[in-house]
């Protein structure tokens, strides 16, 4: 009796989870479907869901007009570079905060997070001027550095949360066995935190991939990533929703595939430390 009730409850939760999941995924699904419609069908009322004349025409137009591979490559470099660089800097920082805390550690963590609360446009001009002075406008390396700085507080916070879960006694034991600081971080701490570091890498890669303020404002031709690619298909005077949807689908496809294959790590990363 109790088991039947439990099964019913589990079934109910599963259905609810599916409904919520489908609602969340619906805009993406709609974008993908629209990308296979003609412009006239894309704005038809009432809209057709699956029964329309499927066409690849929009993908052909987008391919013809834009150098997709250049945008994609820039996205990979900028998102990948900034994430890896961020983790390299954040691992020692999070180690220090987790295992050698001072009375100011919490304040420093909060201060780091507070930098995320400033609207980006507030520092657009200073950063733009610095880039001009350094000659690094429309430069991938500059964007790698800037996005790394922007995401660093989140990376440090995430790693700090993981490291706090690792018993300090293990590190103490390694020290008693003669491990140096470098050995302790590289050979003891890092292997134990691999799942956490992987989740952090993935999540920040996605954040950097989707970043659409600095990547639009600091690039022109050479360093423009997929966010600029999408922006080039949005039009205030003219209904080009099907082409915009095709461009959007092409821009999100790589990250969607990555997210699909790494969903376990992502979920683990997002919920780690949430339930003690």
């Amino acid at each position, binding site marked *: 009796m109790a088991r039947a009730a439990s099964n019913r409850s589990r079934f109910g939760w599963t259905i609810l989870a599916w409904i919520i999941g489908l609602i969340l995924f619906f805009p993406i699904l709609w974008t993908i479907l629209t990308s296979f419609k003609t412009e006239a069908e894309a704005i038809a009322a009432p809209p057709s869901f699956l029964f329309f004349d499927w066409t690849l025409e929009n993908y052909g137009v987008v391919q013809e007009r834009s150098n997709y591979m250049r945008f994609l490559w820039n996205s990979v470099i900028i998102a990948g570079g900034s994430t890896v660089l961020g983790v390299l800097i954040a691992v020692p920082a999070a180690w220090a905060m987790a295992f050698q805390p001072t009375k100011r550690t919490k304040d420093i963590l909060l201060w780091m997070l507070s930098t995320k609360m400033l609207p980006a446009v507030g520092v657009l001009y200073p950063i733009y001027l610095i880039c001009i002075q350094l000659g690094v*406008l429309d430069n991938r390396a500059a964007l790698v550095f800037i996005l790394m700085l922007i995401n660093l507080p989140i990376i440090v916070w995430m790693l700090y949360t993981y490291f706090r879960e690792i018993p300090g006694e293990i590190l103490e034991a390694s020290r008693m066995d003669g491990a140096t600081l470098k050995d302790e971080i590289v050979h003891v701490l890092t292997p134990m935190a691999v799942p956490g570091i992987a989740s952090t890498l993935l999540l920040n890669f996605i954040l950097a991939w989707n970043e659409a303020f600095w990547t639009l404002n600091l690039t022109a031709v050479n360093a423009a990533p997929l966010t600029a690619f999408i922006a*080039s298909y949005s039009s205030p005077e003219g*209904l080009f929703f099907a082409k915009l949807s095709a461009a959007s689908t092409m821009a999100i496809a790589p990250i969607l595939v990555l997210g699909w294959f790494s969903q376990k790590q992502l979920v683990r990363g997002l919920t780690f430390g949430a339930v003690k």
Partner: protein
Amino acid sequence: MTMTIRALLGATALVGTAGAALADGHATTLTIATVNNGDMIRMQGYTDQFTEETGHQVEWVTLEENVLRQRVTTDITTNGGQFDIMTIGMYEAPIWGANGWLVPLDDLSDEYDVDDILPAMAGGLSHDGTLYAAPFYGESSMIMYRTDLIEAAGVEMPDSPTWEQVRDAAAAMTDRDAEQYGICLRGKAGWGEGGAFITAMANSFGARVFDENWDPQLDSPEWAETVNFFKDMMDAYGPPGYATNGFNENLNLFQQGKCGMWIDATVAASFVTNPDDSQVADSVGFALAPNTGLGKNANWLWAWALGIPAGTQKADAAKEFIEWATSKEYIELVAENEGWANVPPGARQSLYDNPDYQSVPFAQMTLDSILSADPNNPTVEPVPYVGVQFAAIPEWAGMWSQVSQELSAAYAGQQSVEEALEKAQAIAVEEMEAAGY
């Protein structure tokens, strides 16, 4: 075989031309920032011809209008030098020209025939009589209406109707049960969206944004009459949710056959008469934007134009491109390949003198609309600013975006028209005082 020989000859000619340009030491790569609309995208498709003629390569940076505005403004105000040519509008050109941020276009070649540019366009893109950006295409606004519905309703649409006539026609064509709305207009917040429409409409009601001393006039009876007329008409005969409708939303409604009338940009005429996209393509008529008998119609004036930022090192090559892209020859090139209905409109008088173009159904009304808008004398009462649906001052974009948000809130029923105008006046007074007017 013949194809191969032709291709080889073509390639040789191309390399030869480019080589000659390189030998002159001036072949370069131009970076051009532009918006994503039909005419600009079409121009990108013909860029190879420019490269063939001059040897200059072209890199396009295409962005959504608001993103483009922010992007090019940041670059030009910091002398960033990211772009050699920028696509700008009538709002930016005179302000940036006055600040010395744009290269003056005062030495264009004789063949270019700068005097052929429509005076209204040249005037709106100049400062102190110097042209700072060349119009690629120009637009005004006009009434697009359903000839079949007008006929069925038993009313007539004059070539230059009054607002009362427009309201009566809207009433006659409205059938809410059939989702048939008499009139569709922009209510969406934003200085270039609903903000532009209501300002042009206010001009026709005798209102003005500032008096001769730059004092805001949004608390005047003329403004109250304008906004109340708009809201009453749209509440009764407009589509639901009109407070959030802009150009694209109304274009969609009109093409789906849900609007009896639509007053908007003249460039929309080519969309709504295109049978590939529009269900009502064969039953669209055109008329001048409405008036109230005070001598001003409710139509605006706008141009997308090409300007050269003062920071570029490639001003000569940039001028070559601008002369090519905004020339009579470019218009003929597009007409030859894609038909006269698809050429960039509203920039040159010679286009409207061309008998082939005169056969395009919306050509004459577009020209009449453009000619009836005067950016130097936009209102019934005198004003100190230049611009029809905006005042060409740097404070305008920020100030009018806020004002249009208040008006949209009134359209949506979140506040009364009186409250909205009271707040709008306060916003304008504060902004202008802060700016030192």
